[in-house]
């Protein structure tokens, strides 16, 4: 009998091409996603060395980070961003890479379009010059973010040097109460393990709560693995995975589909396999979560009060929390409920898929965004946008007074002009509340789409459960 292995170990083993002693493994990469911000220097490197892209057929590009989310007819004023976009277009043309450029039907945030086209399939290795590549682990893939030097390595060789990370089981059991969502699960996990609890590890999310999530919800959870320090987070494929994938453009068809599913069924962690580390979380008493600090691990239930730095045992943590509260202009012991906000952002690779928009729209329907609050709804892809429009969700948002935008990263990273003003407070469905992340001097509360929508209506941080019938 062969040794019991985890999901991660199976995918890893299958992709190691060479493993020399005292060296990292040469790992084969099945799918390489690229975007305009972290690729230009890699293509320049290829050109300088006279190299080609080894597998353009395993490389897919999109424009998302610095793209405007205003209608295409509005001219792009940011010449630097525009030149980055045109450089991506030239690079893709020269090296024969499929590009979903601005204005095309499949354009969108790189971590939204890969899964929706069916490009992301169980058992694959996937990389992208972006730390939220962890998203794709929801399909039982080993997916992680890389730097630009590594983007160049993968373009040139379709391979990457990697040391084998350790494994970490994140077991999440229980039922989700009404008004509590996948975003709350991951924020609760991060507040428990902190922002470097997972460093050096790959998470595998297991347990009944994870089994009960849809693929989009699983993507929300895996997306923020990196916020816990883990480069990747995985969920074993199951019927939910196959159902999501079946019939998608790049998913296998006919006999090939049956063979693929048979292979995928071997992927889940074997009984008796062990992990290097583990943590458990029970969702039964989980409530909507919100962050109060300047990293995603500084979160609490929306009804709680901000912790007191003086009560922390560790001097470093105390100083870190003081610094965060100072930046956020918040006080220890203060509740966040009813705290006024200036902006509400629904979007990003964490929460911009159709199910996220449906949740938010469900709450906003027949209501209005509070006076003085700017609400921005940015679908994750053109495909999500079309679907939302077919369902009339755009009208729900617009009638409420929200801005309905084109697909892109937008205010998640504030590279495209969608940004907070200094001192403004925002509830955001994105993944990072770092200082200045959503605009210099801006202050971010991370939360779920439901919390964001409820807050937009009241203009103050709201427990969405109070608004659900």
């Amino acid at each position, binding site marked *: 009998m062969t040794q019991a292995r985890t999901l991660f170990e199976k995918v890893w083993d299958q992709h190691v*091409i*060479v493993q020399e002693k*005292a*060296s*990292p493994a*040469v790992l*084969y990469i099945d799918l390489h996603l690229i975007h305009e911000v*972290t690729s*230009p*220097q890699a293509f320049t490197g290829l050109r300088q*060395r006279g190299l080609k892209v*080894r597998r353009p057929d395993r490389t897919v590009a999109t424009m998302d*980070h*610095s793209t405007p989310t205003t209608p295409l007819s509005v001219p792009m004023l*940011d010449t*630097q*961003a525009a*030149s980055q976009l045109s*450089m991506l277009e030239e690079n893709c043309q020269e090296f024969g890479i499929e590009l979903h450029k601005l204005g095309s039907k499949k354009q969108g945030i790189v971590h939204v379009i890969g899964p929706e086209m069916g490009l992301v399939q169980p058992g694959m290795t996937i990389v992208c*010059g*972006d*730390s939220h590549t962890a998203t794709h682990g929801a399909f039982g893939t080993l997916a992680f*973010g*890389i*730097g*630009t*030097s*590594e983007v*160049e*390595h993968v373009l*040139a*060789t*379709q*391979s*990457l*040097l990697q*040391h084998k990370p350790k494994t970490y089981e994140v077991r999440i059991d229980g039922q989700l109460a009404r008004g509590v969502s996948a975003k709350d699960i991951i924020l609760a996990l991060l507040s428990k393990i902190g922002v*470097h609890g997972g*460093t*050096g590890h790959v998470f595998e999310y297991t347990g009944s709560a994870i089994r009960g999530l849809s693929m989009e919800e699983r993507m929300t959870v895996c997306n923020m693995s*990196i916020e816990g*320090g883990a*480069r990747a987070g995985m969920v074993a494929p199951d019927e939910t995975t196959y159902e999501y994938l079946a019939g998608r453009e790049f998913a*296998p068809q006919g006999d090939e589909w049956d*063979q*693929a599913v048979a292979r995928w069924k071997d992927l889940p962690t074997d009984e008796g396999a062990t992990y290097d580390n583990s943590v458990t979380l029970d969702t039964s008493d989980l409530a909507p979560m919100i962050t109060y600090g300047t*990293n995603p691990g500084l979160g609490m239930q929306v009804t709680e009060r901000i912790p007191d730095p003086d009560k922390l045992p560790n001097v*470093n943590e105390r*100083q*870190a929390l003081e*610094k965060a509260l100072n930046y956020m202009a918040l006080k220890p012991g203060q509740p966040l409920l009813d705290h006024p906000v200036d902006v509400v952002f629904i979007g990003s690779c964490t929460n911009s898929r159709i199910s996220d928009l449906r949740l938010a729209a469900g709450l906003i329907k027949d209501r209005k965004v509070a006076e003085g609050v700017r609400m921005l709804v940015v679908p994750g892809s053109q495909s999500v946008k079309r679907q939302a429009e077919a369902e009339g969700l755009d009208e729900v948002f617009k009638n409420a007074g929200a801005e309905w935008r084109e697909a892109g990263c937008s205010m998640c990273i*504030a*590279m495209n002009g969608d940004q907070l003003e*200094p001192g403004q407070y925002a509830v955001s469905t994105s993944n*990072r509340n*770092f*200082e*200045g*992340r959503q605009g*210099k001097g801006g202050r971010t509360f991370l939360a779920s789409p439901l919390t964001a929508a409820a807050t937009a209506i009241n203009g103050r941080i709201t427990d969405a459960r109070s608004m659900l019938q």
Partner: protein
Amino acid sequence: MQKFDTLRSKLIPLPHNNIDTDQIIPARYLKVTDKSGLAEGLFTDWRYEDDGSPKEDFVLNDDRYQEANILLAGDNFGCGSSREHAPWALVGWGVQAVVSTSFADIFKSNALKNGLLPVVVDEETHQSLFDLTEEAPDAEVHIDLGAQEMTLPDGSTVEFPVDAFAKSCLLAGVDQLGYIQSFDEHITSYEQERAIFG
């Protein structure tokens, strides 16, 4: 890649934990298409007032450290985004080594590919180095990558771990692509075998 063997410098103290790559280089500086000019954006929101004047109390604006090359930072340095612009900006400014108790995985990997050495020390050493920067801010430490050793002003030495492969690349000043390319035939046969089942 810039070669790294030994380095002697003052320590630039930046005692915050979880310094993320958005602080090291904010996203608005990522619209470049090359690697140059990023030093300007290094810690820019901590370094400059809104009107562009330098913040006097920020350590990188201290005359004492203008020629220094070693950053002494709080725990979990470089968390967040995968942007390699972070090491590019640090190296562009003149930082050649960062000392901390821990580094985020992607940052560490990126740093090592740019001749920037992440030096991991234990908590006690970490604290004593911060104490040193208060008591003797002009004191220099010496880093010897070959020996994996840092020598403190009092002559004592601290060992630090470095991945053997990355170390040999740094000492030789060669990047890692050549190593992967040397396995071209293996990659090709791997692709042929895998092609059978997709």
